[in-house]
């Protein structure tokens, strides 16, 4: 008791009333509001009205939030103005605002792929989407068959996704460790659920969800433990305060004298926090969930998760390292070097022998996490801008690629085995060409966004003194190029299998999603300057 009160300032009567800046927090509030509205719609609207209303609510909410981001940016936030909101719990600065914008755009495209109802064969005469008819029904059981016959659909995915988006918006903006943890859980829990909701291969999907949940909980525990240790060290969970204690600018808290400035607490806390975040970005050795979850989850969810989670988690990771631990750079940089190298190499090498498109893209995302880490390690302004740009570029390529995967189908649903993609270029030249474009962007071939992004992070890393890392990065890219090009060769230069998959004709939703992916990929490759400027002009992290 006395400890707690002492740490909080010694006077229980002076807990201040929270002050919340609703205007500046509006992007998150709008999204959360839309999520709640979605839940209400789910509860009160009749079944057949739910789909359209959910899609509308989600898109409107995201559009509203994005407008709020734009308005904030036009007021100078993120470039010339920065602020701490909600009594210092949430930061409003350049990286936060930029990443929130990216997450919202990603979410719009993801919702479009969720809304696709044309590629699945109709169930019970009703068009259905990629999500399970009734999540609670036992896979293969009578209840499930009945639900399918009735044409049920899990429209809950929309509010779940909106909650996840809300958490992701908060995550890179969280300015204290507890807020960060809450945000982490807010976006993780809906994702665990979403992973379990595949209409086809339900067991695989549920297995993926359980794995993700168990390992995610494990990682969260590390994060929380790290938070506790750092509180013990600094007497505060505010990132800025921790930095002050490390640099010796802030006085030690009386009640915590026995632990304050105990370096072991600090370093172990730092390592454990890193584990929690590195798990989310899918860095080696905390990557093992990635392939299984990416493969099992419904493909639209995989696309959303692969793009948006990475954006949010890298935002939080950078805030943590840049704001709380800049004074410790020489302690965490070598470790992060090792993680980055391992991530790039293991991701690229393991992808070489994959036979499943979704697993291949999962390993590719691991390798890309490694490339982005090189930019994080640069710890300079250039590196920050490069990582922001990379995240923007990478998200849209990923979304587009997974959207293409949803269209290549056979009688059992999506045909994700690589052998069935042979000769796709002859059956469906346009789709194969689009997928080839995304693969080339992943590989970092010039005139695509992937090249610009990779060039930017490597350049920043080299400028930040991490040349060996850049060399390993380039070599890994060469290995990675092999398996990307292999798929292209397979699609265009192999004979199609008899009885191979067909390419479903999507509705306007998926077509738009893929089209946006193509546009962004080419746009950021051909005319990257505007976005490079945008990413490099953002203000540094606020403290």
């Amino acid at each position: 008791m006395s400890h707690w009160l002492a740490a909080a300032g010694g006077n229980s009567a002076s807990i201040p009333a929270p002050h919340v800046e609703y205007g500046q927090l509006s992007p998150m509030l709008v999204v959360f509001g839309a999520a709640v509205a979605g839940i209400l719609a789910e509860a009160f609207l009749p079944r057949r009205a739910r789909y359209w209303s959910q899609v509308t609510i989600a898109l409107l909410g995201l559009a509203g939030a994005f407008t709020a981001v734009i308005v904030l940016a036009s007021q100078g936030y993120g470039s010339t103005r920065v602020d701490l909101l909600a009594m210092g719990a949430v930061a409003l600065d350049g990286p936060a605002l930029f990443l929130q914008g990216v997450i919202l755009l990603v979410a719009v495209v993801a919702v479009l792929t969720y809304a696709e109802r044309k590629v699945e064969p109709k169930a019970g005469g009703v068009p259905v989407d990629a999500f399970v008819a009734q999540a609670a029904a036992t896979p293969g059981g009578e209840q499930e068959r009945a639900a399918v016959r009735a044409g049920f659909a899990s429209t809950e995915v929309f509010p779940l996704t909106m909650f996840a988006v809300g958490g992701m918006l908060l995550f890179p903006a969280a300015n204290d460790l507890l807020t960060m943890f809450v945000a982490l859980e807010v976006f993780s829990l809906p994702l665990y659920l979403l992973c379990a909701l595949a209409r086809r291969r339900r067991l695989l999907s549920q297995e993926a969800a359980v794995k993700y949940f168990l390992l995610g909980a494990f990682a969260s525990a590390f994060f929380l433990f790290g938070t506790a240790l750092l509180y013990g060290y600094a007497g505060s969970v505010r990132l800025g305060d921790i930095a002050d204690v490390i640099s010796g600018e802030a006085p030690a808290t009386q009640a915590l004298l026995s632990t304050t400035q105990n370096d072991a607490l600090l370093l172990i806390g730092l390592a454990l926090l890193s584990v929690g975040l590195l798990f989310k970005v899918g860095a080696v050795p905390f990557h093992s969930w990635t392939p299984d979850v990416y493969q099992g989850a419904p493909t639209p969810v995989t696309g959303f998760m692969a793009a948006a989670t990475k954006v949010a988690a890298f935002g939080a990771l950078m805030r943590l390292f840049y704001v709380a631990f800049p004074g410790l750079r020489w302690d965490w940089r070598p470790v992060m070097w090792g993680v980055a190298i391992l991530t790039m190499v293991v991701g690229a090498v393991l992808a070489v022998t994959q036979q499943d498109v979704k697993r291949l893209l999962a390993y590719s995302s691991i390798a890309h996490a490694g490339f982005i880490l090189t930019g994080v390690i640069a710890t300079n302004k250039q590196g920050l801008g490069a990582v922001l740009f990379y995240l923007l570029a990478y998200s849209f390529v990923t979304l587009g690629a997974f959207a293409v995967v949803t269209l290549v189908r056979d009688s059992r649903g999506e045909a994700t085995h690589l052998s069935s993609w042979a000769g796709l270029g002859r059956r469906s030249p346009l789709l194969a060409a689009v997928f080839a474009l995304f693969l080339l962007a992943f590989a970092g071939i010039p005139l695509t966004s992937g090249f610009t992004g990779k060039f930017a992070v490597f350049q920043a890393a080299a400028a930040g003194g991490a040349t060996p890392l850049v060399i390993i990065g380039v070599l890994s890219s060469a290995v990675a190029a092999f398996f990307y090009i292999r798929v292209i060769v397979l699609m265009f230069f192999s004979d199609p299998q008899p009885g191979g998959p067909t390419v479903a004709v999507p509705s306007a939703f998926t077509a738009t999603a893929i089209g946006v992916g193509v546009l962004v990929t080419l746009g950021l490759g051909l005319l990257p300057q505007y976005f490079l400027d945008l990413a490099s002009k953002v203000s540094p992290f606020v403290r």
Partner: protein
Amino acid sequence: MNSLIPLLVAAPLAGAALLLLGGRRLDRFGHWLATAFAALSFAFGLALLASMLGRETAERQVDVNLFSWIPVNGFQADVGFQLDQLSITFVLLITGVGTLIHLYSVGYMAHDERRRRFFAYLNLFLAAMLLLVLADNYLLLYVGWEGVGLASYLLIGFWQHKPSAATAAKKAFLVNRVGDMGLSIAIMLMFAEFGSFAFGPLLGSEGTAGAVGQASEGKLTAIGLMLLLAACGKSAQVPLQSWLGDAMEGPTPVSALIHAATMVTAGVYLITRSASIFNLAPDAQTTVVVVGAVTLIFGAIVGCAKDDIKKALAGSTMSQIGYMILAAGLGPIGYVYAIMHLVTHGFFKAGLFLGAGSVMHGMNDEVNMRHYGGLRKYMPVTFVTFGLGYLAIIGFPGLSGFFSKDKIIEAAFAKGGTEGWILGGVTLLGAAITAFYMTRVMLLTFFGEKRWQPDAEGHEPHPHESPSTMKIPMIVLAFGSVFAGGLFTLNSSFLHWLEPVTGHAEGDSPLSPLTVTLITTLCMVAGVAVSYLMYGRSPVPVVPPVGSALTRAARRDLLQDDFNHAVLVRPGSALAAALVYFDSRGLDGFVNGLAATIGGVSSRLRRIQNGYVRSYALSMFGGTLVLVATTLLMRSV
């Protein structure tokens, strides 16, 4: 008026584009269209000449900057034209002779089903050559230079169904590429040294010194030698001469165009245009002179031994261009005469080639002179025009070649010292050999008894005069062959005309001009006499005699191909084979091995990904331990 300058190039270029893109509906009149475009360009040239003559000497040069071509920071290239006395001379030669050759081709190619395409290429050739001589900087000149190479490739290989023609085209292109490398290196050197490749700032104009004045002699020598290499390629000078003889595989009007109006004159133009560079690089100049002198004799010897009428003329071209290169290498003493000989040569060599084409046309496309004989009665117009060209080229007093060649020989002596004597001797020897082999051509073709042979299908030849579209150009060119030299020499008009551009200096000749003229004429008479004794007095065998070792070598173009094969092709193939071996065994082995290793590692690592969440958690836990331990360790070290 100056706006006409870009049109000079644009007219034939438009013709080429129109004919190539216009399709079959242009088949019926496309050739006339092309001829009209060539004539239009010639008319523009005449208009510009008139306007230029109306201006003071100092104001005759006109610069037209069309647009900025490559505006990169620190690298400025413009598309701009420079029209001065030198370029207008070339323009008129190219378009004038070019138009006549177009007209001639209308008759010559009348029965070729790909005639439209042929005329498109002819127009393209003119456009490229005009761009070359009008460009106001070396980079744009290079565009024209490459365009000439392309057009010559297309035309030499026009009858591509004949493997020999396809090979000849490829050979011409490849050999020219060697020269092109020289030009590109020269341009790079210029840019590296001066930061520019525009004529104005680089070479200076009248009264103002260009940037080259400040450069060291060594660098200028390097640039000069590279320019010479370029000139050797286009102008078929030793050691890049081997393509010229084979280029006879193209239709005869093409040979006339290449040898008289375009292509081979490009090298002489390049050296004359770069006079400011060569004047400051004596070593490069000496090399130019040596190349010219060697080629002069080389071509003449080859010309003596050939039985193929076109190849004999080709040897003669090589030799005559050798004269021009030699003159250009003499510096200010010779530039004007190099160009003057180039123009007169343009007339009589075009006339000779068109005459040869006319003979072939009448003789079932026979080219072997040993199967001709006595044609003067059957083809009187061809005989007369060809004869006038012949008299001009051997330097018969009063005709064009007499004046221009004589001036070069004088200039060679005027070089002074031992050099002067050697060069003078070589040029005189060349004059004698020229008289010899040209008389041989004349005698074998038009005089003596008939040695006609039936062609492959057994048709007896029925020699006849060619249609008037072919006769008119020959007659016009004959006029040029007769009068051009005299006109140019009258009051030294050509000298005064060109001097402001190229500069001029009188050397100190040990012999008086009259003496030189006399000796030259004597040499010429001796050559004609020897030839007459050998070929005019006794019947010519239809099957060539074995001949001396020199003759046999000369028939094989003085072993140039054997030389290239032994010195370049064989080591080149060996190098390529070695590289292929290294690539397939060394590099591929390494790369494949690496790929296999990565694949192996990948399959082994995959086993860790076993799908059990417990082992994933364990690996995460292990990873966390390592991370914590390393972080702590980093602090302690």
